[in-house]
Protein backbone atom coordinates (compact mmCIF):
# COMPACT_ATOMS: atom_id res chain seq x y z
CA UNK A 1 0.00 0.00 0.00
CA UNK A 2 1.51 3.33 -1.05
CA UNK A 3 0.90 6.65 0.68
CA UNK A 4 -2.01 8.71 -0.68
CA UNK A 5 -2.31 12.50 -0.82
CA UNK A 6 -5.22 14.87 -1.19
CA UNK A 7 -3.93 17.07 -3.99
CA UNK A 8 -6.91 19.29 -4.67
CA UNK A 9 -10.44 19.96 -3.45
CA UNK A 10 -13.51 21.80 -4.72
CA UNK A 11 -17.07 22.54 -3.64
CA UNK A 12 -20.20 23.97 -5.16
CA UNK A 13 -21.78 26.18 -2.50
CA UNK A 14 -24.79 24.56 -0.86
CA UNK A 15 -28.29 25.90 -1.31
CA UNK A 16 -31.96 25.16 -1.73
CA UNK A 17 -33.68 24.58 -5.07
CA UNK A 18 -34.72 27.95 -6.46
CA UNK A 19 -32.44 30.11 -4.32
CA UNK A 20 -29.72 32.46 -5.60
CA UNK A 21 -26.93 29.94 -5.06
CA UNK A 22 -28.09 26.72 -6.71
CA UNK A 23 -31.21 27.91 -8.50
CA UNK A 24 -32.48 25.13 -10.74
CA UNK A 25 -29.05 23.87 -11.74
CA UNK A 26 -29.03 20.17 -12.57
CA UNK A 27 -26.76 17.95 -10.51
CA UNK A 28 -24.17 17.60 -13.28
CA UNK A 29 -23.71 21.36 -13.36
CA UNK A 30 -23.15 21.45 -9.60
CA UNK A 31 -20.69 18.56 -9.89
CA UNK A 32 -18.86 20.09 -12.84
CA UNK A 33 -18.13 23.22 -10.83
CA UNK A 34 -16.79 21.20 -7.89
CA UNK A 35 -14.67 19.02 -10.19
CA UNK A 36 -13.26 21.94 -12.18
CA UNK A 37 -12.34 23.66 -8.89
CA UNK A 38 -10.70 20.49 -7.53
CA UNK A 39 -8.68 20.01 -10.73
CA UNK A 40 -7.58 23.64 -10.65
CA UNK A 41 -6.72 23.42 -6.96
CA UNK A 42 -4.66 20.29 -7.67
CA UNK A 43 -3.04 21.83 -10.70
CA UNK A 44 -3.96 18.93 -12.95
CA UNK A 45 -6.02 18.58 -16.09
CA UNK A 46 -9.01 16.34 -16.70
CA UNK A 47 -6.97 14.07 -18.94
CA UNK A 48 -4.60 13.39 -16.02
CA UNK A 49 -7.41 11.67 -14.09
CA UNK A 50 -7.03 7.90 -14.31
CA UNK A 51 -10.19 6.74 -12.54
CA UNK A 52 -13.33 8.18 -10.93
CA UNK A 53 -14.93 7.05 -7.70
CA UNK A 54 -18.34 8.68 -7.33
CA UNK A 55 -21.04 8.59 -4.71
CA UNK A 56 -24.14 7.16 -6.34
CA UNK A 57 -27.23 9.30 -5.90
CA UNK A 58 -30.73 8.00 -5.35
CA UNK A 59 -32.18 11.45 -5.92
CA UNK A 60 -30.74 13.03 -9.05
CA UNK A 61 -28.70 12.37 -12.18
CA UNK A 62 -26.99 9.08 -12.91
CA UNK A 63 -29.50 8.23 -15.66
CA UNK A 64 -31.89 6.90 -12.99
CA UNK A 65 -29.41 4.07 -12.32
CA UNK A 66 -27.05 5.80 -9.88
CA UNK A 67 -24.43 6.30 -12.60
CA UNK A 68 -23.34 9.70 -11.30
CA UNK A 69 -19.68 9.04 -12.00
CA UNK A 70 -20.48 8.29 -15.63
CA UNK A 71 -22.37 11.59 -15.88
CA UNK A 72 -19.31 13.56 -14.84
CA UNK A 73 -17.01 11.62 -17.17
CA UNK A 74 -19.28 12.40 -20.13
CA UNK A 75 -19.48 16.00 -19.02
CA UNK A 76 -15.72 16.47 -18.68
CA UNK A 77 -14.82 14.31 -21.69
CA UNK A 78 -15.04 10.54 -22.21
CA UNK A 79 -11.47 9.34 -21.88
CA UNK A 80 -12.35 5.69 -21.25
CA UNK A 81 -11.24 5.67 -17.61
CA UNK A 82 -12.77 3.27 -15.07
CA UNK A 83 -15.73 4.64 -13.13
CA UNK A 84 -17.02 3.36 -9.79
CA UNK A 85 -20.43 4.42 -8.45
CA UNK A 86 -20.86 3.72 -4.73
CA UNK A 87 -24.14 3.52 -2.81
CA UNK A 88 -24.12 3.69 0.99
CA UNK A 89 -27.02 5.99 1.88
CA UNK A 90 -25.71 9.16 3.51
CA UNK A 91 -22.30 7.47 3.84
CA UNK A 92 -21.88 7.20 0.06
CA UNK A 93 -19.44 10.10 -0.23
CA UNK A 94 -17.18 8.55 2.40
CA UNK A 95 -17.51 5.16 0.77
CA UNK A 96 -16.50 6.62 -2.60
CA UNK A 97 -13.53 8.31 -0.98
CA UNK A 98 -12.45 4.99 0.48
CA UNK A 99 -12.56 3.28 -2.93
CA UNK A 100 -10.62 6.15 -4.49
CA UNK A 101 -8.09 5.82 -1.68
CA UNK A 102 -7.81 2.05 -2.24
CA UNK A 103 -7.32 2.49 -6.00
CA UNK A 104 -4.36 4.79 -5.35
CA UNK A 105 -2.97 3.05 -2.25
CA UNK A 106 -2.90 -0.28 -4.10
CA UNK A 107 -0.70 1.23 -6.80
CA UNK A 108 -3.26 0.65 -9.55
CA UNK A 109 -3.59 4.37 -10.26
CA UNK A 110 -1.78 7.46 -9.14
CA UNK A 111 -4.37 10.18 -9.91
CA UNK A 112 -8.02 9.63 -9.04
CA UNK A 113 -11.09 11.87 -8.79
CA UNK A 114 -13.59 11.35 -5.97
CA UNK A 115 -16.88 13.23 -6.13
CA UNK A 116 -20.48 13.46 -5.00
CA UNK A 117 -23.35 15.83 -5.64
CA UNK A 118 -27.11 16.08 -5.23
CA UNK A 119 -30.20 17.95 -6.18
CA UNK A 120 -32.52 16.91 -3.37
CA UNK A 121 -36.29 16.53 -3.30
CA UNK A 122 -38.11 18.72 -0.80
CA UNK A 123 -38.75 17.87 2.84
CA UNK A 124 -36.76 15.79 5.28
CA UNK A 125 -34.93 12.79 3.87
CA UNK A 126 -37.07 9.71 3.76
CA UNK A 127 -34.76 6.88 4.65
CA UNK A 128 -36.59 4.36 2.45
CA UNK A 129 -38.29 4.61 -0.87
CA UNK A 130 -39.92 1.21 -0.65
CA UNK A 131 -43.57 0.49 0.21
CA UNK A 132 -43.34 -3.22 0.97
CA UNK A 133 -44.22 -5.12 4.13
CA UNK A 134 -40.85 -6.88 3.87
CA UNK A 135 -39.13 -3.48 4.30
CA UNK A 136 -38.60 -2.67 8.00
CA UNK A 137 -38.44 1.04 7.25
CA UNK A 138 -41.87 0.93 5.64
CA UNK A 139 -43.26 -0.92 8.65
CA UNK A 140 -41.88 1.75 10.94
CA UNK A 141 -43.62 4.40 8.88
CA UNK A 142 -46.95 2.62 8.51
CA UNK A 143 -47.29 0.85 11.89
CA UNK A 144 -45.41 3.19 14.20
CA UNK A 145 -45.63 6.54 12.38
CA UNK A 146 -41.97 7.34 12.70
CA UNK A 147 -40.11 9.55 10.20
CA UNK A 148 -36.36 10.26 10.33
CA UNK A 149 -36.23 13.25 12.71
CA UNK A 150 -38.16 11.28 15.37
CA UNK A 151 -35.40 8.72 15.32
CA UNK A 152 -32.93 11.46 16.21
CA UNK A 153 -35.08 12.89 18.95
CA UNK A 154 -35.36 9.46 20.62
CA UNK A 155 -31.59 9.59 20.94
CA UNK A 156 -31.62 13.17 22.18
CA UNK A 157 -34.29 12.34 24.79
CA UNK A 158 -32.26 9.36 26.01
CA UNK A 159 -29.25 11.62 26.43
CA UNK A 160 -31.33 14.05 28.48
CA UNK A 161 -32.24 11.11 30.71
CA UNK A 162 -28.69 9.83 31.08
CA UNK A 163 -26.76 13.08 31.43
CA UNK A 164 -29.35 15.69 32.24
CA UNK A 165 -28.75 17.49 28.97
CA UNK A 166 -31.03 20.53 28.64
CA UNK A 167 -32.68 22.06 25.61
CA UNK A 168 -30.43 25.09 26.10
CA UNK A 169 -27.40 22.83 25.79
CA UNK A 170 -28.67 21.38 22.52
CA UNK A 171 -29.27 24.94 21.33
CA UNK A 172 -25.71 25.94 22.21
CA UNK A 173 -24.40 23.40 19.71
CA UNK A 174 -26.43 24.98 16.91
CA UNK A 175 -25.19 28.43 17.93
CA UNK A 176 -21.59 27.20 17.74
CA UNK A 177 -22.20 25.64 14.30
CA UNK A 178 -23.67 28.83 12.87
CA UNK A 179 -20.88 30.91 14.38
CA UNK A 180 -18.45 28.87 12.26
CA UNK A 181 -20.63 29.10 9.16
CA UNK A 182 -20.39 32.90 9.16
CA UNK A 183 -16.87 32.36 7.87
CA UNK A 184 -17.72 29.69 5.32
CA UNK A 185 -18.74 31.03 1.89
CA UNK A 186 -19.90 27.54 0.84
CA UNK A 187 -22.43 27.15 3.65
CA UNK A 188 -26.15 27.48 2.99
CA UNK A 189 -26.74 29.31 6.26
CA UNK A 190 -24.09 31.95 6.98
CA UNK A 191 -25.76 33.98 9.70
CA UNK A 192 -24.95 33.77 13.39
CA UNK A 193 -27.85 32.90 15.67
CA UNK A 194 -28.43 33.02 19.42
CA UNK A 195 -29.68 30.44 21.89
CA UNK A 196 -32.90 32.44 21.98
CA UNK A 197 -33.23 32.17 18.19
CA UNK A 198 -32.83 28.40 18.38
CA UNK A 199 -35.28 28.02 21.25
CA UNK A 200 -37.76 30.18 19.32
CA UNK A 201 -37.60 27.87 16.31
CA UNK A 202 -40.42 25.29 16.24
CA UNK A 203 -40.03 21.74 17.44
CA UNK A 204 -39.61 19.26 14.59
CA UNK A 205 -39.63 16.44 17.06
CA UNK A 206 -39.44 17.46 20.69
CA UNK A 207 -36.78 17.95 22.09
CA UNK A 208 -35.23 18.79 18.69
CA UNK A 209 -36.04 22.07 16.94
CA UNK A 210 -35.87 23.30 13.36
CA UNK A 211 -32.50 25.03 13.80
CA UNK A 212 -31.04 21.90 15.38
CA UNK A 213 -31.73 19.57 12.46
CA UNK A 214 -30.11 19.69 9.05
CA UNK A 215 -32.47 20.24 6.11
CA UNK A 216 -31.84 18.83 2.63
CA UNK A 217 -29.63 20.92 0.36
CA UNK A 218 -28.30 20.88 -3.18
CA UNK A 219 -24.54 20.87 -3.48
CA UNK A 220 -21.48 19.06 -4.77
CA UNK A 221 -17.97 18.21 -3.66
CA UNK A 222 -14.87 16.81 -5.36
CA UNK A 223 -11.32 15.92 -4.52
CA UNK A 224 -8.31 14.85 -6.56
CA UNK A 225 -6.14 12.31 -4.76
CA UNK A 226 -2.80 10.95 -5.87
CA UNK A 227 0.19 8.91 -4.77
CA UNK A 228 2.81 10.56 -2.57
CA UNK A 229 5.33 9.95 -5.34
CA UNK A 230 3.18 11.76 -7.89
CA UNK A 231 2.41 14.59 -5.46
CA UNK A 232 6.09 15.54 -5.46
CA UNK A 233 5.61 16.97 -8.95
CA UNK A 234 3.16 19.53 -7.62
CA UNK A 235 3.35 22.70 -5.60
CA UNK A 236 3.36 21.09 -2.18
CA UNK A 237 -0.07 21.96 -0.84
CA UNK A 238 -1.03 18.29 -0.64
CA UNK A 239 -2.09 16.74 2.66
CA UNK A 240 -1.65 13.07 3.57
CA UNK A 241 -4.40 10.49 3.95
CA UNK A 242 -3.41 8.84 7.22
CA UNK A 243 -6.27 6.35 6.91
CA UNK A 244 -9.63 5.76 5.25
CA UNK A 245 -12.10 3.17 6.51
CA UNK A 246 -15.54 1.69 5.92
CA UNK A 247 -17.58 -0.30 8.42
CA UNK A 248 -21.10 -1.58 8.97
CA UNK A 249 -23.15 -1.96 12.14
CA UNK A 250 -22.68 -4.97 14.37
CA UNK A 251 -25.41 -7.34 15.51
CA UNK A 252 -25.23 -6.22 19.15
CA UNK A 253 -25.95 -2.59 18.28
CA UNK A 254 -28.58 -1.18 20.66
CA UNK A 255 -30.36 1.02 18.14
CA UNK A 256 -33.29 -0.71 16.40
CA UNK A 257 -32.86 0.00 12.68
CA UNK A 258 -36.17 -1.60 11.83
CA UNK A 259 -38.88 -2.35 14.40
CA UNK A 260 -36.76 -4.11 16.99
CA UNK A 261 -33.29 -5.18 18.10
CA UNK A 262 -31.82 -7.18 20.92
CA UNK A 263 -31.08 -4.85 23.85
CA UNK A 264 -27.32 -4.41 23.90
CA UNK A 265 -25.04 -5.76 26.58
CA UNK A 266 -23.18 -2.45 26.51
CA UNK A 267 -24.20 1.02 25.44
CA UNK A 268 -23.08 0.88 21.80
CA UNK A 269 -25.60 2.80 19.73
CA UNK A 270 -23.84 3.68 16.50
CA UNK A 271 -21.57 0.67 16.18
CA UNK A 272 -20.80 1.27 12.50
CA UNK A 273 -19.51 4.79 13.16
CA UNK A 274 -17.49 3.71 16.19
CA UNK A 275 -16.00 0.81 14.22
CA UNK A 276 -15.06 3.00 11.25
CA UNK A 277 -13.48 5.65 13.48
CA UNK A 278 -11.66 3.13 15.69
CA UNK A 279 -10.23 1.38 12.62
CA UNK A 280 -9.18 4.76 11.23
CA UNK A 281 -7.28 5.53 14.46
CA UNK A 282 -5.66 2.08 14.45
CA UNK A 283 -4.61 2.16 10.81
CA UNK A 284 -3.23 5.68 11.08
CA UNK A 285 -1.43 5.04 14.35
CA UNK A 286 -3.18 8.17 15.58
CA UNK A 287 -5.20 8.57 18.75
CA UNK A 288 -8.12 10.84 19.70
CA UNK A 289 -5.65 13.01 21.63
CA UNK A 290 -3.80 13.81 18.39
CA UNK A 291 -6.78 15.36 16.61
CA UNK A 292 -6.68 19.05 15.73
CA UNK A 293 -10.29 18.91 14.56
CA UNK A 294 -13.18 16.60 13.74
CA UNK A 295 -15.79 16.89 10.98
CA UNK A 296 -18.62 14.57 12.02
CA UNK A 297 -22.07 13.93 10.61
CA UNK A 298 -24.34 16.25 12.60
CA UNK A 299 -27.72 15.50 11.06
CA UNK A 300 -28.76 16.96 14.36
CA UNK A 301 -26.92 18.66 17.21
CA UNK A 302 -27.23 15.51 19.33
CA UNK A 303 -24.43 13.88 17.36
CA UNK A 304 -21.95 16.64 18.19
CA UNK A 305 -22.42 15.69 21.82
CA UNK A 306 -22.63 11.90 21.52
CA UNK A 307 -20.04 11.02 18.87
CA UNK A 308 -16.93 12.57 20.46
CA UNK A 309 -17.74 10.63 23.62
CA UNK A 310 -18.39 7.36 21.81
CA UNK A 311 -15.05 7.64 20.02
CA UNK A 312 -12.98 8.58 23.06
CA UNK A 313 -12.32 12.16 21.98
CA UNK A 314 -13.80 13.27 25.28
CA UNK A 315 -15.27 11.49 28.30
CA UNK A 316 -18.89 10.27 28.48
CA UNK A 317 -21.17 13.06 29.67
CA UNK A 318 -18.49 15.69 29.24
CA UNK A 319 -19.55 17.11 25.86
CA UNK A 320 -22.09 19.65 27.12
CA UNK A 321 -19.59 21.33 29.39
CA UNK A 322 -16.98 21.43 26.62
CA UNK A 323 -19.50 23.12 24.32
CA UNK A 324 -20.42 25.61 27.05
CA UNK A 325 -16.74 26.41 27.59
CA UNK A 326 -16.25 27.03 23.87
CA UNK A 327 -13.90 24.07 23.52
CA UNK A 328 -15.66 22.76 20.39
CA UNK A 329 -15.12 26.05 18.50
CA UNK A 330 -12.20 26.30 16.07
CA UNK A 331 -10.04 27.88 18.78
CA UNK A 332 -11.03 25.45 21.54
CA UNK A 333 -9.36 22.26 22.76
CA UNK A 334 -11.67 19.96 20.81
CA UNK A 335 -12.81 21.69 17.61
CA UNK A 336 -15.87 20.00 16.11
CA UNK A 337 -17.20 20.85 12.64
CA UNK A 338 -15.37 24.13 12.04
CA UNK A 339 -16.98 24.06 8.58
CA UNK A 340 -20.34 24.75 10.20
CA UNK A 341 -21.37 21.14 9.72
CA UNK A 342 -24.52 19.63 8.30
CA UNK A 343 -26.60 21.96 10.48
CA UNK A 344 -25.17 24.94 8.55
CA UNK A 345 -24.87 23.29 5.13
CA UNK A 346 -27.92 21.07 5.01
CA UNK A 347 -27.43 17.62 3.66
CA UNK A 348 -26.76 16.87 0.00
CA UNK A 349 -26.53 13.18 0.82
CA UNK A 350 -23.86 11.83 -1.52
CA UNK A 351 -21.72 14.96 -1.37
CA UNK A 352 -21.16 14.98 2.38
CA UNK A 353 -18.28 12.52 2.81
CA UNK A 354 -16.36 14.40 0.13
CA UNK A 355 -17.36 17.81 1.48
CA UNK A 356 -15.72 16.82 4.78
CA UNK A 357 -12.47 15.97 2.99
CA UNK A 358 -12.51 19.42 1.35
CA UNK A 359 -12.90 21.15 4.71
CA UNK A 360 -10.18 19.05 6.32
CA UNK A 361 -7.76 19.82 3.49
CA UNK A 362 -8.41 23.57 3.77
CA UNK A 363 -7.95 23.40 7.54
CA UNK A 364 -4.66 21.48 7.30
CA UNK A 365 -3.44 23.92 4.65
CA UNK A 366 -4.36 26.83 6.89
CA UNK A 367 -6.76 28.28 4.33
CA UNK A 368 -9.97 28.36 6.36
CA UNK A 369 -9.96 32.05 7.21
CA UNK A 370 -12.25 33.03 10.07
CA UNK A 371 -13.08 29.41 10.90
CA UNK A 372 -9.44 28.24 10.88
CA UNK A 373 -8.32 25.86 13.61
CA UNK A 374 -4.94 27.32 14.62
CA UNK A 375 -2.00 25.13 13.66
CA UNK A 376 -4.24 22.26 12.48
CA UNK A 377 -2.19 19.11 11.94
CA UNK A 378 -4.53 16.11 12.10
CA UNK A 379 -8.22 15.93 11.15
CA UNK A 380 -10.87 13.21 11.42
CA UNK A 381 -14.10 12.94 9.44
CA UNK A 382 -16.99 10.50 9.67
CA UNK A 383 -20.23 9.65 7.87
CA UNK A 384 -23.21 7.45 8.76
CA UNK A 385 -25.76 6.11 6.31
CA UNK A 386 -28.87 4.00 5.90
CA UNK A 387 -28.29 0.25 6.04
CA UNK A 388 -25.75 0.52 8.84
CA UNK A 389 -22.99 2.08 6.75
CA UNK A 390 -20.27 4.32 8.13
CA UNK A 391 -16.93 5.70 6.99
CA UNK A 392 -14.02 7.60 8.49
CA UNK A 393 -11.04 9.48 7.10
CA UNK A 394 -8.00 10.82 8.92
CA UNK A 395 -5.92 13.44 7.11
CA UNK A 396 -2.64 14.80 8.38
CA UNK A 397 -0.35 17.63 7.38
Amino acid sequence: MQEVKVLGVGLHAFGKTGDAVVGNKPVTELCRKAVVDALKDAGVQWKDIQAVSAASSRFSGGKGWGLNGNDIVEEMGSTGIPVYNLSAGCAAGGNAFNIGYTLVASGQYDMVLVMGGEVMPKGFIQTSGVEEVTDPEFLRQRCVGMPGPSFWSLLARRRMHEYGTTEEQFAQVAVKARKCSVHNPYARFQKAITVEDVLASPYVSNPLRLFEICPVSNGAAATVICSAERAKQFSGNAVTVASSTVATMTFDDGLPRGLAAPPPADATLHSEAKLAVTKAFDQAGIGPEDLSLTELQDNTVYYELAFPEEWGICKPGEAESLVAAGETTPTGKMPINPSGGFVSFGEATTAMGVFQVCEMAWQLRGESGGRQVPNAKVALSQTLGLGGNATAVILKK
Partner: protein
Amino acid sequence: MERVPAVEGLFTEEGGAKLLGSKCATCGTVYFPKSASCHSPKCDESKIGDFGFGGKGTLWSYSIQDFPPPPPHKFDKPYEIYALGVVDFPAGVRVMGQMSIDNLEDLKVGSEVELVIEPLYHEDDKEFTSWKFKQL
Protein backbone atom coordinates in the same frame (compact mmCIF):
# COMPACT_ATOMS: atom_id res chain seq x y z
CA MET B 1 -66.59 -0.14 11.90
CA GLU B 2 -64.35 -3.00 10.84
CA ARG B 3 -61.15 -3.26 12.89
CA VAL B 4 -58.15 -4.45 10.84
CA PRO B 5 -54.42 -4.46 11.41
CA ALA B 6 -52.44 -1.69 9.63
CA VAL B 7 -50.20 -4.52 8.41
CA GLU B 8 -51.20 -8.20 8.73
CA GLY B 9 -49.24 -10.78 10.65
CA LEU B 10 -47.32 -8.56 13.04
CA PHE B 11 -49.50 -8.78 16.15
CA THR B 12 -52.59 -10.40 17.68
CA GLU B 13 -55.27 -9.34 20.14
CA GLU B 14 -56.51 -12.86 20.91
CA GLY B 15 -55.59 -13.91 24.43
CA GLY B 16 -54.12 -10.48 25.11
CA ALA B 17 -51.99 -8.12 23.04
CA LYS B 18 -48.96 -9.88 21.63
CA LEU B 19 -46.32 -9.10 19.03
CA LEU B 20 -45.66 -12.02 16.70
CA GLY B 21 -41.92 -12.56 16.51
CA SER B 22 -39.41 -15.37 16.34
CA LYS B 23 -36.86 -16.75 18.74
CA CYS B 24 -33.73 -18.76 18.09
CA ALA B 25 -33.56 -21.82 20.35
CA THR B 26 -29.77 -21.93 20.10
CA CYS B 27 -28.80 -18.40 21.12
CA GLY B 28 -32.07 -16.99 22.47
CA THR B 29 -32.18 -14.01 20.12
CA VAL B 30 -35.68 -12.59 19.69
CA TYR B 31 -36.75 -11.14 16.33
CA PHE B 32 -39.63 -8.84 15.47
CA PRO B 33 -41.07 -9.08 12.87
CA LYS B 34 -40.57 -12.81 12.32
CA SER B 35 -37.31 -13.94 10.83
CA ALA B 36 -36.77 -16.97 8.61
CA SER B 37 -33.41 -17.61 10.24
CA CYS B 38 -31.20 -16.42 13.06
CA HIS B 39 -28.98 -13.54 11.95
CA SER B 40 -26.62 -13.49 14.91
CA PRO B 41 -23.08 -13.94 13.64
CA LYS B 42 -22.21 -15.58 16.95
CA CYS B 43 -24.93 -18.21 16.68
CA ASP B 44 -23.68 -21.70 15.84
CA GLU B 45 -26.92 -23.00 14.39
CA SER B 46 -30.10 -21.16 13.46
CA LYS B 47 -33.08 -22.80 15.19
CA ILE B 48 -35.96 -20.42 14.62
CA GLY B 49 -39.42 -20.83 16.07
CA ASP B 50 -42.48 -18.61 16.46
CA PHE B 51 -42.39 -16.45 19.56
CA GLY B 52 -45.16 -14.16 20.76
CA PHE B 53 -44.43 -11.60 23.44
CA GLY B 54 -46.08 -8.67 25.17
CA GLY B 55 -46.99 -7.59 28.67
CA LYS B 56 -44.83 -5.09 30.48
CA GLY B 57 -41.56 -3.42 29.56
CA THR B 58 -39.43 -0.39 30.32
CA LEU B 59 -39.47 2.83 28.28
CA TRP B 60 -35.89 3.31 27.01
CA SER B 61 -36.68 6.61 25.32
CA TYR B 62 -39.45 8.49 23.54
CA SER B 63 -39.91 11.29 21.04
CA ILE B 64 -42.71 13.64 20.11
CA GLN B 65 -43.95 13.76 16.52
CA ASP B 66 -44.55 17.48 16.30
CA PHE B 67 -45.39 17.66 12.60
CA PRO B 68 -47.60 15.51 10.33
CA PRO B 69 -45.23 12.98 8.76
CA PRO B 70 -45.13 12.59 4.95
CA PRO B 71 -46.48 9.53 3.09
CA PRO B 72 -46.38 6.54 3.42
CA HIS B 73 -47.23 7.50 7.00
CA LYS B 74 -50.98 7.49 7.77
CA PHE B 75 -52.89 9.33 10.49
CA ASP B 76 -56.36 10.69 11.19
CA LYS B 77 -57.11 14.30 10.30
CA PRO B 78 -56.89 16.85 11.80
CA TYR B 79 -53.40 15.82 12.80
CA GLU B 80 -52.83 15.39 16.51
CA ILE B 81 -49.32 15.32 17.91
CA TYR B 82 -48.39 11.88 19.17
CA ALA B 83 -45.37 10.25 20.81
CA LEU B 84 -43.15 7.33 19.87
CA GLY B 85 -41.34 5.07 22.25
CA VAL B 86 -38.60 2.46 22.40
CA VAL B 87 -39.33 -0.24 24.96
CA ASP B 88 -37.14 -2.98 26.43
CA PHE B 89 -39.13 -6.16 27.06
CA PRO B 90 -37.92 -8.77 29.56
CA ALA B 91 -38.16 -11.32 26.72
CA GLY B 92 -34.89 -9.76 25.56
CA VAL B 93 -35.96 -7.45 22.77
CA ARG B 94 -36.10 -3.68 22.26
CA VAL B 95 -39.12 -2.57 20.22
CA MET B 96 -40.27 0.67 18.57
CA GLY B 97 -43.90 1.70 18.72
CA GLN B 98 -46.33 4.56 19.12
CA MET B 99 -47.20 5.61 22.68
CA SER B 100 -50.72 5.40 24.01
CA ILE B 101 -50.95 8.30 26.42
CA ASP B 102 -53.41 11.10 27.11
CA ASN B 103 -51.01 13.77 28.26
CA LEU B 104 -47.67 13.91 26.50
CA GLU B 105 -46.28 15.84 29.50
CA ASP B 106 -46.54 12.65 31.54
CA LEU B 107 -44.03 10.74 29.41
CA LYS B 108 -40.99 9.62 31.37
CA VAL B 109 -37.93 7.65 30.32
CA GLY B 110 -37.53 4.58 32.51
CA SER B 111 -41.24 4.23 33.29
CA GLU B 112 -43.13 0.96 33.05
CA VAL B 113 -45.29 0.46 29.95
CA GLU B 114 -47.61 -2.23 28.67
CA LEU B 115 -48.17 -3.50 25.14
CA VAL B 116 -51.65 -2.75 23.79
CA ILE B 117 -53.36 -2.96 20.40
CA GLU B 118 -55.16 0.29 19.53
CA PRO B 119 -56.47 2.22 16.53
CA LEU B 120 -53.80 4.03 14.52
CA TYR B 121 -55.85 5.63 11.75
CA HIS B 122 -59.18 5.35 9.95
CA GLU B 123 -59.67 4.92 6.21
CA ASP B 124 -62.34 3.47 3.86
CA ASP B 125 -64.70 2.95 6.81
CA LYS B 126 -62.14 0.80 8.52
CA GLU B 127 -60.25 1.21 11.75
CA PHE B 128 -56.62 0.29 11.26
CA THR B 129 -54.86 -0.93 14.38
CA SER B 130 -51.27 -1.26 15.48
CA TRP B 131 -49.35 -2.05 18.62
CA LYS B 132 -48.75 0.79 21.08
CA PHE B 133 -47.14 1.23 24.45
CA LYS B 134 -49.35 2.40 27.35
CA GLN B 135 -47.45 4.13 30.13
CA LEU B 136 -48.57 2.70 33.48
